[in-house]
């Protein structure tokens, strides 16, 4: 999928700057699209149009692509999990048409540890899916929907079309790079912006996106996935964006506005009502939703961590809950759930119920039932008693906090936060001594 159904990962500190930055990038992206004039159609990649006969500019694009991928993949941004990677590779192999393999392309999918909901492909058939996207997919058909759309971009060489179509777009893309460096922070943001500029992550001209919709659905159907549910996937991306924006000023600026996603949903519905009106033959094996969720569990858990770090605690709660469902035996998922609930207590949102401290503790206690030696759950449970819920900490809360902190220090000797916990222990011990001397 392109950025239309996704939020970008770039953020600006202040709301005024965010709004201006969002308008700037959105405007530039629209401007870039508008500059696309008549395009010379390119033959799709297949046995006749193989990678052995790349034109000079296409070969250069591939070289740039490999270099960018090397940078990203050696930067620590890739979430690696052998079982998840193998599963994604199996689904990708299933939906990849033989003609693309005959062309000499070896498609590959990588999971990127990035909080923004995004997925895109490069000219050489490499597809990046952010954990933010995988975490909220409900079934394998949604995964196949994204993969087939991206494969359609690869087959029809849309990254090259975009490159040749450039003219003013090149300037616009450069400005997107400038915008991202101004709007956010470090070199990595620029690294991903660079990836965006040579992939399908940015706005493609409307006709190319429509082509990818149609061709992608064709590939999905040919691979034996049910095409009827595809609009739901795009609706999910809109719902997530709305969910995020209800949680404060975090600006994951969309390169493409929601109306374009709505446009895609309309396009899919039209295709389902015409070319695919008779539906298609669904061919097993397709992982059932529970198995799918289990297969992408590492991405779900990672997304919950990132949402917690970003401070979107309601989303983190929802994602952590998904993680507790996809692997109920994962103690860390329960710790993440507890932290998401605590986050909502620390930063209450107008119009939403503040989770009780009991719910927070229940999550940590559940983690400890699963793994009594879980140091993180022990520390968090201790902190839940240590934080004052009123002006004065109750004696029983002090005792509980002290017990959990002492256990934490025993479970995790040499932990990086040991000095803080020792400080809390000293404070609580002094508090206890003061209480008993009164």
């Amino acid at each position, binding site marked *: 999928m392109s950025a239309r159904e996704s939020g970008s*990962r770039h*953020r600006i*500190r*202040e709301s005024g700057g965010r709004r*201006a930055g969002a*308008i*700037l*990038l*959105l*405007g*530039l992206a*629209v*401007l870039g*699209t*508008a500059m696309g004039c008549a395009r010379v159609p390119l033959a799709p990649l297949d046995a006749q149009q193989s990678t052995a006969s790349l034109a000079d500019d296409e070969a250069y694009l591939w070289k740039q692509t490999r270099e960018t991928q090397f*940078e990203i993949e*050696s*930067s*620590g*941004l890739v979430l690696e999990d052998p079982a998840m990677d193998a599963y994604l590779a199996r689904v990708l192999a299933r939906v990849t048409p033989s003609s693309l393999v005959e062309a000499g392309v070896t498609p590959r999918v990588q999971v990127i540890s*990035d*909080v923004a909901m995004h997925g895109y492909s490069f000219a050489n058939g490499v597809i990046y899916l952010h954990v933010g996207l995988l975490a909220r997919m409900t079934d394998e058909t949604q995964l196949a929907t994204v993969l087939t759309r991206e494969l359609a971009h690869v087959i029809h060489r849309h990254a090259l079309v975009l490159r040749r179509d450039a003219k003013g777009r090149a300037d616009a893309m450069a*400005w997107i790079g400038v915008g991202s460096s*101004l709007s*956010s*922070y*470090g*070199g*990595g*943001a*620029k*690294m*991903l912006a660079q990836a965006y500029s040579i992939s399908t992550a940015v706005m493609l001209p*409307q006709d190319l996106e429509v082509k990818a919709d149609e061709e992608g659905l064709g590939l999905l159907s040919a691979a034996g996935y049910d095409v009827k549910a595809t609009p739901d996937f795009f609706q999910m991306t809109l719902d997530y964006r709305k969910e995020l924006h209800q*949680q*404060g*000023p*975090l600006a994951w600026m969309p390169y493409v*506005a929601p*109306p*374009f996603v709505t*446009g895609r949903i309309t396009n899919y519905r039209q295709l389902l009502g015409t070319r695919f009106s008779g539906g298609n033959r669904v061919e097993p094996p397709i992982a059932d939703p529970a198995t799918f969720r289990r297969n992408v569990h590492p991405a779900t858990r990672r997304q919950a961590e*990132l949402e*917690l*770090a*970003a*401070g*979107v605690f309601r989303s983190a709660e929802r994602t952590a809950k998904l993680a507790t469902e996809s692997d109920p035996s994962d103690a860390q998922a329960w710790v993440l759930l507890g932290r998401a609930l605590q986050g909502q207590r*620390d*930063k209450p949102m107008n119009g939403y119920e503040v989770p009780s401290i009991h719910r927070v503790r229940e999550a940590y206690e559940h983690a400890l039932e699963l793994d009594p030696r879980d140091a993180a759950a022990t520390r968090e449970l201790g902190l839940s008693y240590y934080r004052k819920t009123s002006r004065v900490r109750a004696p029983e809360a002090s005792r509980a906090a002290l017990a959990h902190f002492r256990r934490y220090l025993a479970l995790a000797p040499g932990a*990086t*936060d*040991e*000095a*803080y916990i020792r*400080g809390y222990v000293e404070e609580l011990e002094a508090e206890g001594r003061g209480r008993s001397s009164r």
Partner: protein
Amino acid sequence: MRIGSRWSGACGVAALLVLALVGSLGCAPIWSPTAKGPGPHPLASIQITASGLDDWGWASYEALGGVWHFTRQGDELNQVWMRRWPKSQVVKGTNRSIRDDMTLQEIAALSLDSRRLDDGVARLEVVSNEPARVGNRDCYRIDYRHRNDIGLLKRTVEYGCPVGTWMYRFEYMAPAQYYFDAYLREFEAFVRSVAFKVPGA
């Protein structure tokens, strides 16, 4: 076509913003070198004084609210940043800000979260994270390693001090090999000399 016309207004706004941006870049430089007298040196824009780093190049970015930057041999080899921001300001990369009831551990964790979300700070590995005292204030001190966007292993020591309505951050960053150890002591001495001059805090 309908969608394009819907966003044509945004194009206009974007064009104006680009012009404004280009125009503003052509104005006065946002940083200026700073001459030093005998210490302690006033870093007036962030209301502290400090002694040391006398052989380093000093610059202040007044347009950015008074961010102070120091380097001895260039940013790639060693740099120190002294800055502050209002606690109520959203921490970059997050939609969280610093609350008065946060513990130092929570503030340090927020700073690390911000770094981790910044994908320029990949493979972040915390060496130590502990409470510290700076200028008679309770602060945190984090020591961490990370790779920058060209894969170079760097090491950073960061002090964070909540002072009144402000959050102060003092950072030292250098390549982990040789340079970090070579100048860490100078940075630590500089931070130890900090005195906060925030009225009423």
